């Protein structure tokens, strides 16, 4: 029925989204380099400006120069690689990283109906008018109406593991191989706490659609981070690890693995890997803001309903992007502030700390959804306030338990392997 206007609307949004993401990524790289320079007390990129002139513009021309450089760099394929998988891997990782954004809202709604605009243009061009339809505001999501948005994000996000492990395996290089193995182990381990953290939010809002989750927080005026801080903590750590940022960047620990799974990549394929990693971070920031920080909602500024004025619609976009920028800046500052984990620490954090905490959070939220109103009524306080208090008490209790029960030192010396006959195996490298 309205398939043609829907397709055109989707194409406009897709173009806008991909252009903004690719452009935004390159400029965020510049921001990250500025922050690195600021933290390490040096100048950072400040020279590239408008080409062929002497205008420097604080280094704003750097991303363009980087892009041109990536295009003209030698794209070298080593002799020993598995050709098909070697070319497939960057395509997979970039596709997975970008496709996630199909269901992530980048604003609230715009107060006009796109089908109406299409209708007007079509009639002006002499086409038949559209049949009757109920006008709806234009939603700022590339694919509105998908009811399983969160599951889609999960499913597509998991495909990134293939990009990493295929790239590492097909390169036929030991650094790449270990990087690929580590990255797959890390990504799948932290996917469980990620899912458990989200489950609490889904329980509370009763929907897997991201715009509904924002709407629920805006409607009640209470962000999820206030209600279930434990869930936020679990999600936050897991999202950090999933995007492979510094305290968790075991995947490409430079001192150990050179560059991890993309050691043998160069030129455009390397750029695809790097862009995909940055997109993972942006997606993590989007999800964090949408699930836990109320999305486009800000008290007293953006309103909370579906009917918006143009001012409100633009304010909502600005608020959302501002919050996301804040989270991304935190990611960047964290990168230059913390030392890296050891691999055994990374794994035990995922399985022995975050997974149990995630389970505790899910059980607590489920119990609250089931019995919370009775408890609040019995004590005689508003339900939301009671939940927030319980949530923070739970967080502090869990933190105490974890702090007390974690040993201060780990014994990570290798387990003694029983010697094979004749002591040293032949050809085994001496440790």
């Amino acid at each position, binding site marked *: 029925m309205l*398939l043609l206007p*829907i397709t055109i609307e*989707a194409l406009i949004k*897709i*173009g806008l989204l991909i252009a903004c993401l690719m452009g935004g990524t390159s400029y965020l790289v510049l921001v990250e380099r500025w922050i690195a320079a600021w933290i390490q007390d040096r100048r950072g990129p400040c020279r590239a400006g408008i080409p062929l002139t002497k205008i420097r513009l604080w280094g704003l021309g750097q991303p363009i120069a980087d892009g041109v450089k*990536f*295009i*003209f*760099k*030698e*794209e*070298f394929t*080593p*002799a020993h690689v598995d050709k098909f998988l070697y070319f497939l891997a960057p*395509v997979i990782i*970039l596709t997975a990283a*970008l*496709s996630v954004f*199909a269901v992530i809202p980048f604003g609230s709604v715009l107060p006009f109906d796109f089908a109406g605009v299409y209708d007007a243009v079509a009639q002006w061009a002499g086409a038949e008018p559209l049949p009757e339809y*109920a006008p*709806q505001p234009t*939603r700022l999501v*590339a*694919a*509105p*109406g*998908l*009811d399983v948005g969160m599951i889609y994000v999960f499913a597509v996000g998991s495909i990134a593991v293939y990009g990493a492990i295929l790239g590492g395996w097909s*390169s036929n*290089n*030991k*650094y790449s191989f270990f990087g690929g*193995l580590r990255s*797959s*182990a890390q990504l*799948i*381990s932290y996917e*469980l706490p990620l899912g458990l953290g989200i*489950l609490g939010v*889904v329980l509370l809002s*009763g*929907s897997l*659609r991201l715009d*509904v989750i924002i709407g629920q927080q*805006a409607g009640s005026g209470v962000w999820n981070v206030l209600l279930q801080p434990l869930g936020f903590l679990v999600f936050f750590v897991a999202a950090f690890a999933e995007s492979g940022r510094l305290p968790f960047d075991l995947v490409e620990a430079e001192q150990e693995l050179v560059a991890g799974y993309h050691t*043998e990549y160069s030129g*455009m394929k390397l750029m*695809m890997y790097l862009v995909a990693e940055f997109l993972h971070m942006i997606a993590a920031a989007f999800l964090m803001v949408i699930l836990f920080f109320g999305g486009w909602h800000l008290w007293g500024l953006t309103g909370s309903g*579906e009917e918006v004025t143009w001012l409100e619609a633009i304010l909502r976009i600005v608020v959302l992007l501002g919050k996301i920028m804040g989270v991304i800046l935190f990611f960047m500052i964290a990168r230059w502030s913390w030392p890296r984990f050891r*691999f055994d620490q990374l*794994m*035990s954090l995922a*399985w*022995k700390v975050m*997974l149990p905490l995630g*389970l505790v959070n*899910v059980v607590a939220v*489920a119990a609250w959804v*089931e019995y919370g109103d009775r408890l609040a009524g019995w004590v005689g306080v508003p339900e939301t306030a009671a939940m927030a208090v319980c949530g923070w008490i739970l967080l502090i209790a869990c933190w105490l338990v974890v702090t007390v029960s974690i040993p201060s030192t780990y014994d*990570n010396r290798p387990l003694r392997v029983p010697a094979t006959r004749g002591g040293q195996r032949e050809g085994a490298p001496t440790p």
Partner: protein
Amino acid sequence: MQSTVLAILAPILLFVACVVGLAVVLLVMGNCFSPGRKTRVKRMPYESGMDPIHDTRRQFDVRFHLMAIAFLVFDVELLFLYPWAVTAQAAKLAASQPAASAVATSSVATAAESADSTASTNRAMDATVAALRGTELVENRDLVFPGVMVFIALLTLGFIYDWRKGIFRWR
């Protein structure tokens, strides 16, 4: 109905198609413009300047495999929790309201309709509530929460077994 499903799925398919197209264009563009100067040493695997020692495809630590299996078990069980999580809130609301005489099937249809046409928060929730009213999930609701808790307890038991087995120990 079919056109509605298509209207929901078309943007996603378009998005994925555009993204794959972009990735392939980037790949081809990189190959078009880049110089190619091959030398024998350059074509060797990079091993920090040393000559590579034997092939990469060798044995690796079995713990990566154990981790993958543990992940598979937990992740699938986690996915089972999602349908319950989506409906838990609405089922409670539906149970607290007086059971309407409306036939469940027709309200499911209207719920689906209004959910993808209006999609406003409250209406989507109301629609789910209306759809759930009078269904089995609401009638047997007292059993749902203990059931899920038993499920999570079993999951935890498996988790404890894995822990005791030392799967999560990396040394």
